[in-house]
């Protein structure tokens, strides 16, 4: 590969490398999510579908479907995954 | 004047051939004579265009060996097209051959160029034949004149190849073609190429079917399976021979013969009405598929190209057998388009042999970067053969598909399209390998990267020109189509030709 590519001898300590900082991000995400759920009370949805009117529909749908997506994908791996050199 | 020119078109190559034999001790003069002869011939052929475009068909009769049947030469659009292709490419091939033969240190160069000249004369004779007898005469002459070229190397391989070559071509032509010619003569009382055909109303559908089948198989040069084996066998010849004769003159003479017989002996309408082409249509369809499949299995470059030619020839036959104006246009165009494309490929194969001494496809890795012009030309030729725009080959395929759609032959259409894909499968890897695989380590070590090692200029320039020709044929496809109009519309207005 490129000669400039090297392996780091020891991990550098950048901001992201500190677990505490990562935790901060996660906490921030939780807060943002909570705020978005709260926002549900403050605007008028121009609904075209019955489902939309359900409280926090987009949030819940997004969350649930993503979990289902990942779970389904994990099941697919059982059937579809092959070695990297399968076609060679 | 046209009469004199017609004779000249036959005599010029032969005279040139004899002159160069006289000059055999000074190779430079000899080779100049070859090129000049070719140029003169091309000029003569071109000089017929004004008359033919004006709707004229100049004609002369040399002799009448059989009562009522002359050795007659007539210039008509189809023949002129073939003559133009053959004579035009002869110039380039001659230039190329000079470079190749010297580059490859071939023996007997004088004999080579002499036979070459006679072959071209024979091809011109076929192109301008005014009746079936004349055509047959020059057809045989072409077989015989090319035989020494096929066996040029003189070794056991060449002999075996030559034996198959002569055996199949002579066997089919005398065994089937001659018989069909005689039978036609007996039925129709004439063998003149006549607009709208001579058999209509004289032959029953069954006899028409048998006759056309005999004609098509009898024309061994058209390489319909199972009479295709001579073509790969003929690849033992030096590459310029393969280039001009087995990509242009000989094989095109074969399909041209079938096409001309379909148009002028049977008549397009007659074939369409009687279904006389049914058997051959499917034989040709089989051939073009099977030949492509076989080509896939060949590692020898020339062998692969030979099988490719077998397949491509069948396109012309398919067009002739479909017998509607679009299909005939496609068939006629395919003669020109394939000639230009395939000669490019053979030139490239020869250039590769001269410059790098490689004959097998598996040895071509990385060679494209060393011979960029050759491989670029090979790419262009391949795309044209496959039938993709923007190269000439696209138009012939277009018209053949139009023709099969007009005839409602959906399966055939599918096969033609499948064949295009197979063509890709056997041609494009050659380009891909050449450009994009690494050179073998020992070769890479020998020369620094980026070194260009092309064949001599005499080889490279012609192949670039023919590659450019493939592009030009795309742009001028319309002109060729308009030029062919008289034959395509002839059946509707036969009175005009009386």
């Amino acid at each position, binding site marked *: 590969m490129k000669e400039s590519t090297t392996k780091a001898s020891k991990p550098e300590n950048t901001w992201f490398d500190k677990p505490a900082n990562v935790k901060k991000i996660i906490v921030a995400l939780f807060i943002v999510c909570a705020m978005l759920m709260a926002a549900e009370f403050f605007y008028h949805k121009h609904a075209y579908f019955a489902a939309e009117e359900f409280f926090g529909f987009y949030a819940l749908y997004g969350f649930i479907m993503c979990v289902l997506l990942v779970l389904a994908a994990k099941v697919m791996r059982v059937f579809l995954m092959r070695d990297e050199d399968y076609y060679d | 004047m046209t009469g004199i020119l017609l004779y000249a078109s036959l005599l010029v190559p032969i005279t040139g051939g004899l002159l160069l034999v006289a000059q055999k001790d000074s190779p430079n003069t000899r080779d100049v004579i070859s090129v000049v002869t070719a140029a003169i011939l091309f000029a003569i052929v071109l000089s017929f265009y004004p008359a033919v475009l004006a709707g004229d068909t100049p004609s002369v009769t040399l002799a009448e060996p059989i009562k009522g049947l002359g050795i007659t030469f007539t210039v008509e659009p189809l023949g002129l097209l073939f003559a133009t292709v053959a004579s035009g490419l002869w110039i380039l091939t001659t230039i190329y051959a000079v470079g190749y033969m010297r580059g490859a240190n071939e023996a007997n160069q004088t004999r080579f160029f002499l036979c070459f000249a006679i072959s071209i004369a024979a091809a011109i004779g076929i192109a301008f034949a005014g009746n079936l007898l004349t055509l047959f005469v020059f057809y045989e002459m072409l077989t015989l004149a090319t035989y020494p070229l096929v066996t040029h190397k003189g070794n056991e391989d060449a002999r075996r190849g030559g034996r198959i070559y002569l055996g199949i071509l002579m066997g089919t032509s005398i065994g089937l073609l001659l018989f069909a010619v005689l039978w036609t003569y007996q039925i129709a009382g004439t063998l003149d190429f006549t607009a709208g055909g001579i058999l209509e109303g004289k032959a029953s559908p069954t006899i028409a079917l048998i006759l056309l089948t005999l004609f098509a198989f009898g024309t061994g040069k058209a390489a319909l399976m199972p009479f295709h084996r001579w073509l790969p066998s003929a690849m033992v010849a030096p590459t310029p021979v393969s280039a001009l004769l087995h990509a242009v003159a000989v094989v095109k003479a074969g399909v041209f013969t079938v096409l001309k017989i379909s148009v002028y002996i049977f008549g397009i309408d007659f074939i369409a009405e009687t279904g006389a082409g049914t058997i051959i249509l499917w034989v040709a369809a089989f051939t073009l598929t099977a030949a492509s499949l076989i080509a896939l*299995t060949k590692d020898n470059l020339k062998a692969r190209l030979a099988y490719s030619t077998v397949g491509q020839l069948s396109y012309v036959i398919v067009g002739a057998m479909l017998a509607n104006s679009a299909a005939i246009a496609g068939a006629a165009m395919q003669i020109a388009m394939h000639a230009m494309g395939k000669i490019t490929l053979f030139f490239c194969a020869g250039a590769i042999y001269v410059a790098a001494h490689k004959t097998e496809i598996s040895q071509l890795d990385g060679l494209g970067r060393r011979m960029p012009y050759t491989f670029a030309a090979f790419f262009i030729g391949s795309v044209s053969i496959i039938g993709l725009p923007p190269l000439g080959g696209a138009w012939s395929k*277009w018209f053949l598909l139009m023709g099969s759609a007009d005839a409602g032959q959906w399966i055939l259409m599918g096969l033609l399209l499948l064949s295009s894909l197979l063509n890709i499968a056997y041609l494009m890897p050659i380009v891909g390998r050449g450009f994009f695989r690494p050179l073998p380590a020992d070769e890479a070590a020998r020369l620094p990267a980026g070194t260009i090692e092309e064949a001599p200029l005499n080889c490279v320039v012609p192949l670039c020109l023919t590659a450019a020709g493939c592009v030009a044929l795309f742009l001028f496809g319309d002109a060729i*189509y308009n030029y062919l109009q008289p034959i395509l519309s002839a059946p509707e207005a036969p009175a005009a030709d009386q």
Partner: protein
Amino acid sequence: MIEGLNPALILIAGALLVPLIPQPARRFYVVLLPLVSMLQLVMHSHGTFAQLNFFDLPLETFRLDGLSFVFSLIFHIAAVLGVIYAIHDDDPIHPTAGLVYAGAAIGAALAGDLLTLFVYWELTAVSSVFLIWARRTESAFKAGMRYLLIQVGSGVILLAGLIIHFTESGSLAFNAMNLETIGGKLVFLAFGIKCAFPFLHNWLQDSYPEATASGTVLLSAFTTKLAVYALARGYAGTEMLIWIGAIMTAFPIFYAVIENDLRRVLAYSLNNQLGFMVVAVGIGTPLALNGAAAHAFCHILYKALLFMSMGAVLLRAGTCKGSELGGLYKSMPFTTVCCIIGAASISAFPLFSGFVSKSMIVSAVAYEHLTLVWLMLIFASAGVFHHSGIKIPYFAFFAHDSGIRCEEAPLSMRVAMGITAALCIGIGVFPGLLYAILPYPVDYVPYTVAHVITQLQLLMYSALAFTVMMLWKIYPPELKSVNLDTDWFYRKGATALLLPVSALTARSTESLFSLLASIKSKFLSVFEKTVGPGAWLSRSVDTAGMVTLTMGSLLIFLLLYLF
């Protein structure tokens, strides 16, 4: 500006000169060329030009209208960005093939008839394969062959379709078509292959990740969007497309989740994004078609940006496998930022380009009250964020530090990424600029409170899902693997079929020939026994024998004649 001159021709003719121009002049030339032709396009008046009568067929080789303008404009922009991105590379193959490819795509978009369309259609296939082969690896070579076969296959189906369409209708004009006729169906199928319809899609995931870093950037821009354009032109409002599109949005994301090669993940998400456009084309209302065009426009940019960032990673780190990457933000901060901008755009975050185009499509679906389709699109939107928005940047640049330390991307790449990122944000912030060039008048407002909040809810909660699953270690890890997809059928199935069939054909014709030869020698040996040297028919007969024979003959004659 030259009236009637097709910008595609400028681009193609100019591109062919590229290999002949020495460096460093070539660097300027390759950027200038698409700019010049873009100028020609932008300055040109709308209408039909360069009409030819070829083969007695009226051809309209240059038709400029609202729809074709948007597509050819964005193709030009992509071409400029693509060549800038590759300037650091001295190999002339990229700019040459890339610009011919771009020119062909533009020519196809500007084609007013099916024959011209076919010509350019095939040219895109033939030129683009070089971008794959240019990787110069064994697997790229093979992938290129497969790609070429499928692309040309689409072309020949188009050819068959247009010929049948022509015989059925007598017209070659490329306007609205339908699925009633065989011709129409075949043309639809041809478009569908290039558009990577479900089950016809796998060439995309098969080939794009095999191309060079710069090659994939160009590849991602043209072929599929050309197909979207063709569908929008020919099959707008075809209901089947809504369902095809909906499936396209949904099912690639499952693969994207478990795919290891990040450029292949992007290829799946490309597929998913196409689904949105196809749905829009299927709806066929002005809003939907505007949405399709706008989404194609934005998509080309952000997808290019994502591929650019992954290309930079590939160039510098030498791999694009999620399982081998991580922590690259330390070495390639600029690339990381650009990648995140691209990810935000594709995920349709407000203020990024994807938002202003995708919401048009979703709204168009909503206006038609297609509940199921709508649910699928929403799901797909969440899913695309999941894999393109989060997975790509996360596994490449963050996640667990792989320890790879490399240089930042070369200047040319950074410039290209920078411009593209700026465009993504620019469109997101000033959607009016994009809306102004859409084929139909736009009175759509993307930034409503409801839009923004619902979109943020959707995205943030799927991010939440990702985070939760990562924390609980439910999320599937990146593994060295390939996943079976429809390419199995031609990579294993066809190979298993074609090679034996061709070998069999070769062998059987060969044995037919030797059968003939052996029949010949059989005959010869029979004849040799009867007429060969010394055999009974050819040996010398002695005098007595001859006389007997003669007398016998005479006797027979006499008997015959006298009695």
